[in-house]
């Protein structure tokens, strides 16, 4: 059951990323390019994705997941240095290449050596992140 929901969710996610044009870096960079030829598509994708998720979150109230277990707890609303610095770093990389993790995965099958290189460096970054985070915490504690 869990695997069925997982493949269904992954399939919907991959299909949605593909047909919405989010695996095309020109569309993503077009959304960020407010000084050039601005492309609003990403806003429609975000809006279109948030609507079903909004209702899904409402449906979690007073229930448990269909495959058992519990729903994720509400995170503490902490706006710490990790959230801000991490998001800024992610945004810089996103702007540079026009790729975020979902589309990197969804396009890995047809994105050439460039996509593969992006995936490898992204995974390296993910592996380095815990150590980087500790250094960041030290700096934040001094500041």
């Amino acid at each position, binding site marked *: 059951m869990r695997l069925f929901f997982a493949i269904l969710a992954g399939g919907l996610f991959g299909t949605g*990323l593909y047909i*919405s044009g989010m695996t095309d870096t020109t569309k993503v960079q077009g959304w960020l390019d407010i000084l050039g030829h601005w492309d609003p598509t990403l806003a429609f994708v975000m809006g279109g994705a948030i*609507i079903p998720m909004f209702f899904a979150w409402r449906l979690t109230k007073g229930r448990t997941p269909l495959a058992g277990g519990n729903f994720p707890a509400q995170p503490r609303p902490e706006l710490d240095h990790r959230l801000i610095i991490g998001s800024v770093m*992610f945004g810089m990389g996103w*702007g540079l290449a026009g790729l975020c993790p979902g589309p990197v995965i969804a396009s890995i099958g047809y994105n050439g050596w460039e996509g593969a290189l992006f995936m490898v460096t992204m995974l390296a970054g993910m592996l380095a992140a815990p150590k980087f*985070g500790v250094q960041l915490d030290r700096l934040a504690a001094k500041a």
Partner: protein
Amino acid sequence: METDWIWGLLGGGLIGMGGAVYLLGNGRIMGASGILGGLVDGSGRQAAAEKLVFLAGVILFPLILRSVFSVQGSTHLTSNVSVIIAAGLLVGVGTRIANGCTSGHGVCGISRLSLRGLVATVFYILAGVLTLALFRHVLGVI
């Protein structure tokens, strides 16, 4: 193109339904960086099978669509090796430090009215806008 926004809305709807299935079915947040990163650094190896199956779905469905409808849309990814390496590292480190990306913070966070999700999204969009403006319109390298 004029129809791009319709495909965007439709594709976005599918992304949101994927997130809804993952949440209501398995009780998990559909965040691409969290699922992939957790498998890679070992912090999220519990329920590894369903995460791998999820990733297989994400990779295989676009490939199937491409072969069935014989579309050859390009991703227009740059061939500039320095840009790819720098961007890949920033996306990898940044999403793990912030504990989320466009899908986790953006789609799943904002839809549950999470302040963290909203703030993260504002910051990565602002950083993306400024970085693109600098490297495209000032330095002219991308």
